[in-house]
């Protein structure tokens, strides 16, 4: 139960409608899209303006109360997991599209605006917002910014960071700043926007975001190809990319995944060991010739069936099948544990083989769906939370999978973020020095360690401090930085 003083102060700022402090209501906020970690926040607040956010954060700073920002609560790494005795700042009521500026190809939004609303707002003018995470119908732009969300089309168009032009941010001490150039392609001074995007809510809270929108392509062609197994499908992927084609998207799903989405949204996928969805977009002539080439490569890789989307409706059905993949797991399992590792594309085959072996070893089912073009894997470990010990076993298996990816020269996360979930693997990928350098940046923004604490880094450290005897960080030794 939150202290009377905290409730009163928040009520002063937001009115009673903006404050949630009853236990059973707070429980609805105890986790985000990842249910493995749950913490009941002290209080939930629902600001409606940047000024509200600033006042809340300033109060937290003055009182030393930790806070966490949350958008639609769909994150998959526990990035919006509340902090015990902390404030959860939910931005779902800040959902105005502030400005649509078609001639300058930009849209200014509040953080609670849902990703797809941006595309919908500019669709009639022939534009769209490119980053399209599978959760785009529900995830918020603020959350996308924090996680630097990707999506199926980021292979060609880049991640959120490539589409954010500027942001108004409330820093952890309540200061409001503007980062990014707005109009300029390369803003003078440090690239603070780049540091902020993908900082997983640890450097502040964005209250206004300027996004770049892009013209809808002249032509879009999509095909779905079925293969005997993921290895053959992987060959096709390598073939396509190797030939110099940059598809707008190239996605792979394995048999288990196909089964789940078939039950859920009936996209009519063929029964196969793996399917690929390949989408090309751009000028008519280019798309047309590259599409023929793509079909040829798939055939050479022994595709058992190739389906071409005849119209927008069929294309939408292909994508519906793909984008519902995670959620559709509910059809074949009670719970799942999703990983987000990245491996070099050339290692895909070997890594998938190893994942299958591990699944057999643990006697657990692992479904695979992934952005094949950039080697971003999403293995889904299926389990049942009601069976004692199974959740731990699933987490253990998921950990082994991540380690496998790292051994093959990969990375911990492609787009879901580290959050609470993967922080323990950070030392496997980074040296202490690497992480201390990151901590220096964090401390520059959040010296009191109150902004989404307990995320990204495995051990809560203050500003470059290390366990054991003090070692000066190389950056400090060189006189480039100092301890706060």
């Amino acid at each position: 139960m939150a202290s009377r003083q905290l409730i009163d102060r928040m009520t002063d700022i937001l009115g009673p409608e903006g404050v949630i402090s009853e236990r059973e209501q707070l429980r609805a906020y105890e986790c985000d899209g990842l249910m493995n970690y749950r913490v009941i926040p002290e209080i939930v607040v629902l600001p409606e303006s940047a000024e509200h956010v600033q006042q809340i954060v300033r109060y937290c700073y003055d009182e030393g109360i930790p806070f966490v920002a949350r958008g639609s609560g769909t994150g998959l790494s526990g990035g919006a997991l509340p902090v015990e005795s902390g404030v959860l700042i939910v931005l779902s009521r800040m959902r105005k599209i502030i400005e649509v500026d078609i001639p300058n190809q930009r849209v200014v939004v509040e953080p609670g605006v849902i990703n797809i609303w941006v595309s919908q707002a500019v669709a009639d003018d022939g534009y769209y917002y490119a980053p399209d995470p599978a959760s785009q119908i529900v995830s918020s732009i603020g959350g996308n910014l924090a996680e630097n969300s990707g999506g199926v089309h980021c292979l060609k168009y880049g991640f959120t960071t490539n589409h954010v032009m500027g942001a108004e941010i409330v820093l952890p001490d309540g200061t409001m700043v503007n980062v990014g150039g707005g109009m300029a392609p390369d803003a003078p001074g440090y690239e603070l926007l780049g540091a902020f995007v993908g900082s997983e809510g640890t450097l502040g809270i964005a209250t206004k975001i300027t996004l770049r929108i892009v013209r809808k392509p002249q032509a879009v062609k999509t095909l779905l190809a079925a293969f005997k197994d993921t290895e053959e499908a992987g060959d096709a992927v390598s073939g396509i990319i190797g030939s110099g084609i940059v598809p707008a998207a190239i996605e792979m799903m394995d048999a288990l995944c196909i089964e789940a989405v078939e039950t859920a949204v009936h996209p009519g996928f063929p029964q196969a060991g793996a399917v690929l969805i390949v989408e090309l977009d751009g000028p008519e002539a280019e798309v047309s010739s590259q599409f023929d080439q793509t079909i040829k490569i798939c055939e050479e890789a022994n595709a058992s069936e190739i389906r071409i989307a005849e119209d927008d409706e069929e294309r939408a059905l292909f994508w519906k099948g793909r984008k519902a993949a995670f959620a559709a797991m509910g059809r074949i399992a009670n719970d799942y544990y999703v990983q987000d590792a990245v491996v070099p594309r050339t290692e895909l085959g070997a890594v998938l083989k190893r994942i299958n072996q591990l699944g057999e070893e643990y006697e657990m089912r692992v479904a695979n769906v992934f952005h094949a073009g950039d080697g971003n894997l999403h293995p889904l470990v299926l389990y049942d939370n009601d069976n004692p010990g199974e959740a731990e076993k699933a987490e253990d298996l998921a950990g082994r999978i991540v380690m496998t990816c790292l051994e093959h020269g990969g990375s911990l996360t492609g787009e879901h973020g580290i959050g609470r979930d993967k922080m323990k693997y950070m030392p496997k990928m980074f040296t202490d020095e690497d992480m201390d350098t990151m901590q220096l940046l964090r401390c520059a923004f959040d010296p009191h360690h109150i902004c989404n604490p307990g995320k990204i880094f495995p051990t809560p450290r203050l500003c470059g401090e290390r366990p054991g005897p003090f070692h000066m960080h190389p950056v400090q030794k060189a006189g480039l930085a100092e301890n706060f």
Partner: protein
Amino acid sequence: MDKDNSSLDPRQDGNPYDATDATERKVDSSSEGTEGMAGAIGAGSPDDIPTDTFASRSAVKQTVGIGRKTESGSVIFPAFDSHHPPEKDLIDDCVHCGFCLPTCPTYVLFGEEMDSPRGRIYLMNKGLEEEPLNDQMVRHFDLCLGCMACVTACPSGVQYDKLIEATRGQVERRYERSTQDKAFREMIFQLFPYPNRLRVAAAPLKLYQRFGVGDKLRKAGVMKMLPKRMLAMEALMPMLTKQQEIPEFTPAEGERRRTVGFIKGCVQRVFFSEVNAATVRVLAAEGCDVVTPKAQGCCGALSVHAGREEEFLGFARKLIDEFEDSGVDQIIINAAGCGSTLKEYGYLLRDDKAYAEKARNFSAKVRDVSEFLQELGPVAERQPLPVAAAYHDACHLAHSQGIRKQPRQTLKQIPGMEVREIKEAELCCGSAGIYNMVEPEPATELGDRKATNVLNTGARMVVTSNPGCMLQIQASLRRMGHSMPMAHPMEVLDASIRGKSVETLLLNR
């Protein structure tokens, strides 16, 4: 009136956390308050409302609050008892992805997790596991419109419809509402499922409308003094037209293709009898013998959506009996809300040994009229109706029954007819059974939003398949100073088959 009608935020109701709230309750069996309320909406004779039909009383006897010791030693009563709690298996289907949030009307309005399907399912799970049923929890369940847009949106196939219905049954049995709230709900349920009573109540309403009493009272400022729920009810009342009776047997025109039973509905029968008349004419014109049992009562949809299980079961058994020996191929319904419940009889009566099988067979025969006509294929000639109509998806047709294409197809088969889509089509208009009467504030907001989207289509009329939606959209348009002709798809089709002009159709309501 009760507290939530006087406070600004409809969600700020009830006392703070009180662990005793989930203990067994006695249901007050007096009809306290009913008389006055019936009078307020013009029910002439309070005698028409019996005081001994409190269905929930027998249900209360079955309720056993099983206390459970926690580690700390305090006793927590579980939120749900063992009679049809929200099923754990169905709850577990939810993977917490949040895809339901943007289509949930209350999440759209309030932006709060507990007022979303994901949040409510989470609360149900907590109710099963550890939390008692208290005012706050009940408030979030009550605020759900039951529009089932989340069922459409959910990739995991969570059967939220079953979950919320089970939860509502528990709430009605185990939770003590304020006296006023209880009385208001009771009044609704003693009135709307009974066409004869509704007709009696509507009679003075006709005079009230003819003499413009409402407008005069509004001008005099008297209306403002009425409680919000009463105002909402008053605003919803349609202009009453002459009752059109449906004969017990209507023969097919030309060659007989099917024999169908017809369900008249309650609100439909009293306020929109011309929709029923048009439906029967269309069915006959398409080669159907139409059997309409005279004695038929309510299907129980309003009751089951409000968790009044015993009352529902009574209605359902009676209706099944009425069609028992009718020998019909299909049972046709033209009201979306009734149709979705009729199709669920098999599930809802699963515990009733005597009726389980009958109910399954009954449900298997039920068709929405547009669904049926598309299965059957058109034979009657359609005359042109050159008009642009906005088609509004009733939630209980689109989300509950998955019927979207058929009514549009029915309209598009009419030469000259242009069907326009309404933006945010998946979002509920706020009608939702009795919702706009018990929760007028969110309902009004949703109604305004829908009416704005309807106006933006630039269409000349609105077509929809549910009487509740018609009342709600009409009331919302009126409040915004607009009016637009409304029709059920069957009225449009009937006009086309009978060669009526567009102008005649537009005079409709």
